[in-house]
């Protein structure tokens, strides 16, 4: 390549100028492509990746956008992002509200992936981390109104583990319980079945990317009771025991039992029983 058009020889100066011109042009294209790909690589919070997906930044490098996971999903919940959508073009996703992951035991989507974008080290679907369910709206969730629902609790593929029901006093009726769904982040795989099944027009429980859903306690926090348990005893000088001005032969237990008569049974619920007892107080 030492002659240009019309066979005229190219001198070194022209050659270097030509290379620099092309390099600058291609560099500009690269800059545009790089900036666009950074923009285009952000995943909306409502969109979830299939099980085993690498962290988002790595996923967009590893995934070759072939759609084999989409085809091998027996429940057809996966889609590939289209150009112009907010999802990175060609990458697989699902929307929990439309159809959550059914958590197949053999994880066919991962098996189909030719690149480890869906990590083949994921062999137990229970270890999947597609996101984390969050009961985002306590105002519209009918459990907080004292109404029985528990659909999210019952639909959960690991029922009783990822979502439990916390029974609380219903102050409105004064005599009923509220069955409050509580999500536990460790067992929850983010499959999205709870969001799919939520009976509201707009789901009160939503699966979010874990980094959006989880809080984080400052590393300097020490929970005294756990420290105490781990050490097998108090690590600081224990407080002096509180003295109550109680009649002789009585003491008081903070942690539940209440007023206790030494050498005897706790005070019965009906005060008359105590008053009528021989010897009295």
């Amino acid at each position, binding site marked *: 390549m030492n002659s240009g058009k019309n066979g005229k020889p190219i001198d070194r100066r022209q050659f270097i100028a030509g290379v620099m011109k092309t390099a600058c042009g291609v560099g500009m294209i690269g800059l545009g492509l790089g900036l666009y790909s950074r923009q285009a690589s952000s995943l909306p919070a409502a969109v979830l990746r299939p099980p085993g997906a690498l962290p988002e930044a790595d996923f967009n490098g590893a995934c070759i956008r072939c759609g*084999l996971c989409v085809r091998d999903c027996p429940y057809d919940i996966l889609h590939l992002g289209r150009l112009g959508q907010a999802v990175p073009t060609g990458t697989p996703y699902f929307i929990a509200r439309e159809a959550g992951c059914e958590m197949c035991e053999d994880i066919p989507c991962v098996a189909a992936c030719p690149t480890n974008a869906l990590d083949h080290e994921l062999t137990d679907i229970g270890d999947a981390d597609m996101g984390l369910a969050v009961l985002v709206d306590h105002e519209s969730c009918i459990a907080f109104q004292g109404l029985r629902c528990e659909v999210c609790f019952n639909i959960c593929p690991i029922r009783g583990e990822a979502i439990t029901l916390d029974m609380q006093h219903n102050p409105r009726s004064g005599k009923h319980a509220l069955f409050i769904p509580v999500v536990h982040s460790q067992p929850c795989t983010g499959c999205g079945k709870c969001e799919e099944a939520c009976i509201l027009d707009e789901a009160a429980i939503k699966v979010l990317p874990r980094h959006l859903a989880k809080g984080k306690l400052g590393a300097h926090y020490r929970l005294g009771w756990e420290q105490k348990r781990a050490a097998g005893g108090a690590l600081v000088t224990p407080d002096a025991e509180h003295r109550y001005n109680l009649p002789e032969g009585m003491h008081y237990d903070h942690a539940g039992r209440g007023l206790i008569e030494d050498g005897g049974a706790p005070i019965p619920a009906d005060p008359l029983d105590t008053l009528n007892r021989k010897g009295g107080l």
Partner: protein
Amino acid sequence: MQDYPGKTAAAEQGWLKAHKWLLLRRGSQLGILAVFLLGPMAGIWILTGNLSASMTLDVLPLTDPLLLVQSMLSGARPVVSGVVGALIVLLFYALVGGRVFCSWVCPVNLVTDLAAWLRRRLQIQTSARLSRNLRWWLLGLVLLMPIATGVMAWEYVNPVSLTHRGLLFGMGWAWAVVAAVFLYDLFVVRRGWCGHLCPVGAFYGLIGVKALVRVHANGRERCDDCMDCFNICPEPQVIKPALKGQGQGIGPVIRDINCTNCGRCIDVCSKDVFRFRIGGERASPGHQADRGRQRVAPG
């Protein structure tokens, strides 16, 4: 009617013979597309995935090696099926010619061939000058992006995969990219995309550097300089050494890695100068014997 490449060949040898390789090629392109489309459209799953990676009848994995390389450059560990698939693809195109992918498989070729055909029919002469070496620069860029950004940046805009994936999984705005390539080829640069810019084609060209299937200009002494082959060829620069190099001792085999083995030069030549041959130059340069041994290997 105006003159067009292949007119003489069609008049002298019949329309069918003047379009034989074109028809076979369209059959290959559309056939492959049809087998892919049978799944999503008719529920007959012979092939799943797309040209980036596919699985045939649950046994044969095929992976685009360029994509696998990008994936690995971004830091991802490969999977056995992906690597095996890429090796099969590499081996196949290493034998039949790397850019056989371009002319016999790639769906964008249908678009750019249409643009080229319209350009001839409408006699659109304007053509911006662009180096055919730009594709190598772009290939370098494509491979650099995953290293620099950790993201497979090229796949956000790659017309080849956007088109094929779009047909199978939903187009979105990919049709606009296809339209842009078409209009660019039609009005801006002749064979502008496939022949100048496409880094995917450049990569496949590299694969086929030692390919066995080649177009031979065995009958080059019969050439009457009608220029039909140059006018129809998507990479006309590849023809000249083999066709006109007899004086300089250059053999009749088209060895340029940019030759797409499309066979259009064979079609349009009324003098039967060209034919596909497997293997090197067994016949001495310029020798036209050995006719019985012409072989074909469609993609």
